[in-house]
């Protein structure tokens, strides 16, 4: 558990981060969203003390970070940033093994760990270990950057706009990958983004920052259905709100008995996808399947009722 306790950073007499407190549960993703200048990156960088807080405290599993030597602290916290920041003169394997090497792991252990991570990110070790970052595509570089951040099994992973430099298609894939890997490894992630869509997709919790203050902190559904301020409402985007809400729910949640015509969709699909299928094929109901076997249907009517803001999603 990571506790950020009443933390403030003042630059030239003006607070960049103003008395922010929040708790991040272990094995969850918390996404901090805000416009540029909202203080979200500063907040993130105070956790691994790339920026020293003016006042306040960060505790990792109860231990205040201020008491630890900076470099030792940073080696315990994964850090992945926009534009990956890989070492261009080191191979992929050496980049990923950077922190374990700093921590003095023995060679065999590092070797195995690097292979494990490359496999996890669907990059065959035999093919990628000895390549240099310049020989990889943007998406691959980004994956190596995240793999490096995860290499020493850190208590916490900090990510500063990790997908900011990727084009939309690769970006979506990288987000899906991150979600899968986080669930597999049970990592605790604190992620900064300016993109509300990304925050809603990835975050178990979303924290919205505006002018150095934490204006709302809650589940994505709470943020969408019940924005605390004008600013949050604007970030969530008035027109898209029903669609964003639907994207958080899966088909299985409004499954009903019965049959329907046409191509089926998987029960894991989101209601947004189901809606899209209905509209595109002009159907009022779509069959739902689990592992390829039909288990029921989802109707346009039911989807519509869940898209209305008055329903608190379950």
């Amino acid at each position, binding site marked *: 558990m990571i506790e950020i306790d009443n933390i403030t950073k003042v630059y030239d007499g003006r607070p960049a981060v103003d008395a922010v407190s929040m708790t991040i549960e272990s094995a969850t993703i918390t996404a901090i969203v805000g416009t540029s200048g909202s203080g979200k990156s500063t907040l993130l960088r105070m956790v691994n003390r790339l920026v020293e807080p003016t006042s306040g405290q960060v505790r990792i599993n109860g231990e205040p970070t201020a008491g630890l030597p900076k470099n030792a*602290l940073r080696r315990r916290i994964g850090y992945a940033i926009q534009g990956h*920041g890989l070492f261009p003169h080191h191979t992929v394997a050496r980049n990923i093994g950077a922190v374990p090497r700093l921590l003095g792991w023995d060679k065999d252990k590092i070797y195995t760990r690097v292979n494990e991570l490359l496999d996890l990110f669907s990059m065959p070790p035999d093919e990628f270990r000895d390549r240099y970052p310049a020989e990889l595509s943007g998406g691959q570089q980004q994956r190596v950057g995240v793999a490096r951040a995860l290499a020493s099994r850190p208590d916490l992973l900090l990510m500063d706009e990790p997908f900011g430099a990727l084009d939309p298609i690769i970006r979506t894939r990288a987000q899906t990958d991150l979600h899968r890997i986080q669930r597999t490894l049970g990592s605790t992630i604190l992620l900064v983004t300016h993109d509300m869509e990304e925050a809603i997709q990835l975050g178990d919790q979303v924290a919205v920052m505006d002018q150095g203050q934490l204006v709302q902190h809650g589940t994505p559904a709470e943020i969408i259905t019940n924005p605390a301020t004008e600013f949050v409402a604007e970030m969530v985007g008035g027109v898209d709100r029903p669609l964003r809400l639907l994207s958080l729910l899966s088909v299985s949640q409004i499954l009903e008995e019965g049959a329907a015509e046409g191509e089926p969709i998987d029960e894991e699909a989101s209601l947004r996808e189901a809606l899209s299928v209905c509209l595109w094929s002009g159907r009022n109901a779509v069959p739902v399947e689990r592992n390829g076997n039909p288990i029921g249907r989802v109707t346009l009517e039911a989807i519509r009722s869940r898209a209305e803001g008055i329903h608190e999603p379950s």
Partner: protein
Amino acid sequence: MSRANFLRVIVVSLLLALVLRPEWFAPMFEPFTPPGAAVIYDRTSLLSLSLSHLGIVALASVAAIVVAVLLAILVTRPQGKAFLPLSRTIANMGQTFPPVAVLALAVPMLGFGAGPTLVALFLYGILPIFENTMTGLSTLPPATMEAARGIGLSRRQRLLQVELPLALPLILTGVRLSVVIAIGTATIGSTVAAHTLGEVIIAGLLTNNTSYVLQGGLIVGLFAVLIYDALTQLEASIRKRLGVK
């Protein structure tokens, strides 16, 4: 063999022949020799002159590299920023002082011989290396530097494992410029009795013997070209390893 390598072999052979078997070239230099004078310089062996010439250049360059790189590292650290203008001035002064003036000033202190030449070459060589190292260290990719800090590399580890390796191609460019300038400039050291290939050229000028001047000039020129080429190759291979253009 590629054309470039073929050319290299020819130039190296030509240089070796000029240094080790100068008498082979007697017919070529004959027309430039005044009547009654020797065609080929034979007062000292050209090999010993070449080795001493290169030795002086190497010594002065190593000293210039050490000083210039250390100075550049110092002024790119946060606590050394205040020294930047001063270091720049010193490095620039080294370059503006003509080497001949340095020789003239150094002789009274260091006496005749290699000493004054070493000092002149050293001072002259600092600036290009200093400027290039500084550019190299202050234009590192920001995301890489941020990540290096963020994953917990200490200052020293960042300098040795990230900053210097990444700045290496630029540092080498500075070294190359410096060394090539030094190879040419070392010839004037012979005016104050340093043992360099300048001796051949100066002897030629004093006795109106153009063939001596040509011999000395040719050997110095070929050394400069070959060393320039070798350092360029080294730089290119390092750049390739770094994946930068």
